């Protein structure tokens, strides 16, 4: 009898071993980091003085806006692409050498979208659609974003928040972190304004270079970050030069974009001549969009009826971070504010008309 029990010991010991490794590895990776003490303004200065010119790394982005998730099956996960950026997670690889050589690869299931910039030459490649678009940038222009579903780098995303740090924001420091194997200061921006859905924004600032390694946006209504983008691996060496040369492969549709298409991007969808207007500043700003062709197209989709709820004066797309109100007459009001503020803004806009 005793021997029988001994024979079953490995079957017991192995899961215990695996469980303890699964617990111990993340704990070891997050072992307390103790960096020299700095004040929040010193960390802000460190981030502002960031001078990383070359890097290669893997970025991961997760969104958790509290929307229902759409099942994705096997190799063909295109069904939910319309709102995939709002719910799912993405991985991208990024290679940078100086300010004019960049490559971003958004890694999709069985597909990839690439942006290759070498000097003023820019190629956008989509392996699923089998298209390659070429454009020439004006001198000094910034790289264009990939089309839909692109991932902002922590650097770009953090600068949006850091550039708008003003009296409506409290800047503090959280516990030091480890991101992608590097130690980082945890800069926490908390809005002072009472009426915003954003709880706080934490930016991991690399202790050595000042490069933002990750950005997390927390909503007031939930504990998990509503949006996170950060490096999972990072190497500050110069990437291989061959990565920045791109020749469109045989069999793809090659399009040439005129430089005009690279005009500053606005948030307005194409074909929609109406310009958005912004009311308010800082955290509780509201973006208003007049009625246009695109809103009519959006509201006719069955997904729209599923995702929105009927409220006074229109339909509401409620997420933990942003509320979007589509009024009955087709106008759009969006902002990180409660519904009542959007309704007030809609009523005020209608009154001034």
């Amino acid at each position, binding site marked *: 009898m005793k021997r029988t029990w001994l024979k079953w010991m490995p079957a017991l010991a192995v899961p215990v071993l695996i469980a303890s490794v699964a617990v111990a590895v993340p704990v070891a990776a997050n072992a307390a980091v103790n960096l020299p003490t700095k004040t929040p303004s010193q960390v802000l200065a460190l981030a502002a003085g960031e001078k990383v010119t070359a890097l290669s790394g893997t970025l991961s982005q997760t969104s958790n806006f509290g929307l229902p998730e759409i099942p994705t099956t*096997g*190799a*063909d996960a295109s069904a939910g692409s319309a709102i995939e950026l709002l719910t799912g997670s993405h991985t991208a*690889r990024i290679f940078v050498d100086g300010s004019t050589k960049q490559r971003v690869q958004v890694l999709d299931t*069985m597909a990839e979208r690439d942006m290759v910039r070498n000097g003023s030459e820019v190629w956008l490649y989509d392996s699923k659609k089998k298209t390659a678009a070429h454009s020439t940038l004006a001198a000094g222009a910034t790289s264009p974003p990939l089309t839909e579903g692109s991932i902002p780098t922590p650097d770009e995303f953090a600068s949006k928040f850091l550039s708008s740090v003003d009296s409506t924001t409290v800047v503090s420091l959280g516990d030091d972190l480890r991101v992608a194997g590097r130690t980082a200061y945890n800069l926490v921006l908390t809005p002072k304004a009472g009426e915003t859905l954003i709880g706080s924004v934490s930016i991991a600032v690399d202790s050595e270079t000042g490069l933002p390694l990750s950005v997390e946006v927390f909503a007031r209504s939930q504990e998990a970050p509503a949006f996170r983008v950060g490096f999972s691996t990072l190497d500050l060496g110069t990437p291989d030069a061959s990565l920045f040369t791109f020749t469109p*492969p045989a069999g793809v549709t090659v399009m040439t974009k005129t430089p005009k298409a690279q005009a500053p991007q606005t948030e307005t969808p194409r074909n929609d001549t109406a310009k958005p207007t912004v009311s308010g500043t800082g955290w509780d700003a509201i973006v208003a969009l007049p009625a246009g062709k695109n809103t009519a197209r959006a509201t006719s989709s069955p997904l729209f009826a599923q995702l929105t709820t009927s409220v006074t004066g229109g339909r509401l797309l409620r997420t933990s971070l942003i509320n979007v109100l589509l009024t009955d007459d087709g106008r759009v009001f969006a902002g990180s504010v409660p519904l009542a503020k959007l309704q007030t803004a809609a009523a005020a806009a209608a009154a001034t008309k």
Partner: protein
Amino acid sequence: MSPADRPALSNRSVLGLPLLASEISVLFRRRRTWAMLASLALIPVLIALAVRLTSSRPSTGRGPAFLDQVSQNGLFVSFVGLLVSVPLFLPLTVGVVAGDTIAGEASAGTLRYLLIAPAGRVRLLVVKYVATAVFCVAGTLAVAVSGAMIGAALFPIGPVTLLSGDSIAVGDSIVRSLLIAAYISVSLLGLSAIGLFISTMTDVPVGAMATTIVLSVVSQVLDSLPQLDWLHPWLFSHYWLGFADLSRQPILWDSFGSNLILQAGYILVFGALAFGRFTTKDILS
């Protein structure tokens, strides 16, 4: 499959190599094994013929990924073939082989003869598992090689476009195909270990085969439900389609490594369970 089929075992075979050689030769002398390998090899042939015989080019975005590339480059046939076989056909054949390992011998009444030979239960378990692993490699190669051959016969061959849009020469693409075949063979090792364990629990080989195959389907269904996010990294089928990362430029090794660790975990857990079950089991047949 009577014990007489097996070469005589020498007492000096401490490592069990003669036993392994005998096991593999028994496996590959079976008509069933060859039928399974042949039907696996038939998948890319059917794909290639279907693309060749229909005049209309498959439109982008319909059917399995990369199907539209087949008519331009024959080397894509083996890639599409592997992509199609991974979710069902390969687990099916591996389930048959793994489920048969112990239960098959038990139901044929040959298990006790195997254990009378100076082999020992642990060594028999290991030998059975290694033979199943050899079948995983053989099955994957059957798809990849027949795909490359039929593709070369029916379509032009040229530089292969990677997912990243870069093109690589034919030689490089063969290396990548072999890497993908290695990735898929590794992916099936966890399922083989599960099948081995189930096979020690029953004397009815069909039951063990069916259970193993059903588990592979269940794992894939669970993997497609976003509500079970926390469970996904622990499912043995989670990285099955991750071999696409080998066709990026530069190669992304992350999923290869994660897959290797995951499958090793399954081998350890179910190997230990199979050890516990098989070494304490009363062998009656």
